């Protein structure tokens, strides 16, 4: 399958303050966030962002608080205007849209889920869910039918007539998700959508999202500052630091080759055995008399399979093609190695 770029962000800069434009050049020639704030009292939100988001994939954006995640995601539907740069969605220049076009873009093409749910407290669950549809001009009756369908999909049937305040946080966010899905937009923007939820409920919600995504194939931009969530959900991960993209790639990329200490710091506590797959290990060309596993198998599963089969090496295959073999010793080594050394030792791909 050829992957198509759905959202293309080029050389994006955002400088908050009354005269943002006049400071772009300074930032381009190397002025940092603290200096800009101190000398010119402008806040550097984003700098030199280049990001291609692939159609049908979940792009995670990570970063510490204040790194510019919310700012970046709000550029995609132009809730925030950039100071410089371009944004293309389906090859259409978002920044060139008139007010009318932008409104229709927001109504039909991109919907959003918010950290604090942002539901209307005076409306019932059902009336909240139809909000986007009524903006599209759908008749209320029709909209209610469609909304009810999505409420059922997120596990909320029977709650249509409740008010948001009568629901738990997890349920409120399901309403938020149903409201966003109901518009049938092919882009879903989720700004820390699950961050306000308890771990168990959060994991539930991740499950719901992944399950829905399996059949919907939306282009999802998902913001989080939680690495486990990023690894579970993301097809691709981009890491922001002080408004700059410091690394982007698959979760494997990031875990194996953290670009700098900031990223290494992020990944130091994760369970490598669960994230890494046998395909990413250095493989020996010799064939082994062990078990055969797909290259997508996680180290954890591979170890489990080896122990159960009482063997100590794995032949790794990709689509029935033999790639090479790897020993139990190497697997355990890769799973336990600290991330600092991983970057140097492993030649990847």
């Amino acid at each position, binding site marked *: 399958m050829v992957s198509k770029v759905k959202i293309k962000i080029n050389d994006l800069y955002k400088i908050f303050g009354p005269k943002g434009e006049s400071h772009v050049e300074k930032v381009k020639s190397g002025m940092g966030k603290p200096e800009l704030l101190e000398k010119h009292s402008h806040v550097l939100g984003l700098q030199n962002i280049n990001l291609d988001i692939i159609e049908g994939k979940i792009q995670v954006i990570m970063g510490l608080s204040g790194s510019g995640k919310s700012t970046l995601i709000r550029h995609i*539907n132009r*809730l925030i205007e950039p100071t410089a740069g371009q944004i293309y969605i389906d090859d259409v220049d978002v920044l060139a849209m008139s007010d009318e076009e932008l*409104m*229709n*873009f*927001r*109504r*039909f093409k*991109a*919907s*959003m889920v*918010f*950290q*604090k749910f*942002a*539901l*209307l*407290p*005076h409306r019932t669950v059902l009336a909240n869910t139809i*909000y*986007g549809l009524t*903006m*599209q001009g759908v008749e209320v009756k029709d909209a209610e039918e469609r909304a009810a369908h999505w409420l059922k999909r997120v596990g909320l049937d029977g709650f249509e007539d409740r*008010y*948001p*305040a*009568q*629901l*738990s946080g997890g*349920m409120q966010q399901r309403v938020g998700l149903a*409201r966003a899905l109901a*518009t049938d937009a092919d882009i879903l*923007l989720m700004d820390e959508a699950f961050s306000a939820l308890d771990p168990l409920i959060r994991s539930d919600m991740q499950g719901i999202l992944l399950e829905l995504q399996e059949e919907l194939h939306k282009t999802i931009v998902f913001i989080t500052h939680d690495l486990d969530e990023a690894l579970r959900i993301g097809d691709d991960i981009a890491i922001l630091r002080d408004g700059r993209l410091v690394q982007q790639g698959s979760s494997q990329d990031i875990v194996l080759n953290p670009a700098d200490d900031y990223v290494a710091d992020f990944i130091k506590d994760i369970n490598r055995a669960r994230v890494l797959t046998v395909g990413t290990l250095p493989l020996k060309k010799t064939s082994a008399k062990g078990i055969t596993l797909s290259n997508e198998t996680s180290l954890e599963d591979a170890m489990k399979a080896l122990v159960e089969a009482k063997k100590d090496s794995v032949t790794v295959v990709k689509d029935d093609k033999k790639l090479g073999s790897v020993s139990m010793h190497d697997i355990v080594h890769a799973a336990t190695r600290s991330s600092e050394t991983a970057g140097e030792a492993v030649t990847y791909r």
Partner: protein
Amino acid sequence: MSLIDWNKLTITEPPVLPRELLRNFKKGIDGAFRDFSRTYGEALENFFNPLLMFLKWFQDLLVATPWPIILFIIGGLSWIGSRSWKMSVGAVLAFVAIGWMDMWEDTMATLAIVSVATLLCIAIGIPIGIWMSRSDRAQRIITPVLDVMQTIPSFVYLIPVVMLLGIGKVPGLLAVMIYASPPIIRLTNLGIRLVDAEVLEAADAFGSNYRQKLFQVQIPLALPNIFAGVNQTIMMSLSMVVIAAMIGVPGLGVPVLRAVSNQYLALGLMNGLAIVAIAIIFDRVSQAYGKRLQKHREGDHGV
């Protein structure tokens, strides 16, 4: 000519304008305003004529309506507002007592002016409040005006109002409105400004236009505050009843004035108590209604 009367200036007397100059200054203003009111007074009166007609019609209607029907309406409105039998029965009993003490007609007149003043305050105040919430500049300009409207003694603005429109119901109504409209304006503005930014952002993200955002998000979310403003406006127009009576507005304020000048203690007390009773009924009913408006916001987490 000097701007200070040097002869008068001592260590205990501050510098003061020469008497002649001061008199001319006042005369000038009075004259200019008198000319203005001669030229435009009639036009203004005509402008306000429909209002006068409406007020008269409404008052006559209240007086002409058979008392059992009025009692029924009072009880019904109390029930709709508060959903409490106690409240409704109490309201009806209060009005029975008012009638029994022979204050029915004055009470109807007071109800008429308070209702009309409140309606007008709402009709004018809510749009101004919305405008204020939209523009920081409007807020900067209007806020001090509202401060003045609330603090300046009523008698001071009664003077130009009476000079322009004479004595009667319309100037009384205007005086009541000047005093009673600030809360509804302020609280509309405040309520809209307090609407959660993330909810507004959500409205934007789903492509709402200006009107949709205003009517489907901002005003509904501001409603509890707006309603608190309505409640205060009603209370403040009631508190103006006696002052309005001084410039010819009929109602419970008239006997109170008569009682003051003739030292009729019982008359004053009875009418005063009638005003208080109406105020309590309006206040309780509208507050109960306001509470019910936001009941679903509290939630019981009964999941």
